[in-house]
């Protein structure tokens, strides 16, 4: 099977994010992913796009967020790209799954934000952030076969 690909572009407004999320969710129905897994992929894309709008573009409209969804026989690759302020690689690296841990006995310590990147790292099999020539891309890979373990495969 050849790869199939579609690019989705929105203006950097939160109003448009649901359109992207729903389109991505539906595209996942072309894969063997389950309904909950498709929701998880949608969630990761929404988190990444929200981050581009809130952090890279600091909430300003009139900029573009670009999402490329590519379907291979054994994986789905989603790139979320912006041309705003890039994220420091150290922030990206520091955000580990441990950020999702909670202490049920001390709810006052629960964090009210900061779960976006950890969620993406938890759901996806590989996540890479790169900035080049003013374009920042978060590349997320979800494997469709041999999905037992996580790995750090490059694309």
């Amino acid at each position, binding site marked *: 099977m050849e790869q199939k690909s579609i690019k989705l572009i929105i203006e950097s407004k*939160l*109003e448009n*994010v*649901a359109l992207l*999320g729903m389109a991505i969710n539906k595209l996942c129905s072309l894969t063997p992913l389950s*309904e*909950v897994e498709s*929701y*998880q992929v*949608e*969630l990761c894309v*929404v*988190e990444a796009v*929200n981050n581009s709008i*809130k952090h890279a573009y600091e909430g300003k409209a009139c900029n573009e967020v670009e999402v490329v969804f590519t379907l291979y026989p054994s994986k789905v690759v989603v790139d979320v790209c912006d041309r705003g302020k890039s994220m420091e690689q150290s922030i990206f690296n520091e955000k580990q799954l441990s950020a*999702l*841990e*909670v202490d*049920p006995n001390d*709810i*006052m310590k*629960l*964090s*009210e*934000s900061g*779960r*976006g990147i950890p*969620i993406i790292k*938890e*759901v996806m099999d590989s996540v890479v952030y790169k900035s080049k020539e003013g374009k920042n891309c978060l590349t997320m890979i979800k494997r469709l076969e041999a999905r037992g373990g996580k790995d750090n495969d490059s694309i």
Partner: protein
Amino acid sequence: MIQFETYEKDDLLIVKPKVKRLDAIVAVSFKDKITEFINQGKKLILLNLNDVNFIDSSGLGAIVTILKRLGRDGKLYLCYVSEPVENMFKLTRMDKIFKIFDTEEQAIQSVK
């Protein structure tokens, strides 16, 4: 912005957000509105998530804010949590934090 259905049952305030997506676009008005109820003295809140089929980390963050604003003598319950939303709570370990009931009736019974 966000619409709610609310009603009271003894001391319990039942709040049903009328949105399909509890996401970044509604998160602020969602927590502001419920904070108003808390400021009015409500201590027991049941969130009926029947209409919600998607929640992102902003929506989740708003629920955490509400939980913290309720403080130690308040309580937050959830009901009618759809499968994807429940999965999101698991991903973020919130299933260990929120008390989730299947139905509104079960929540009401248990709070009595």
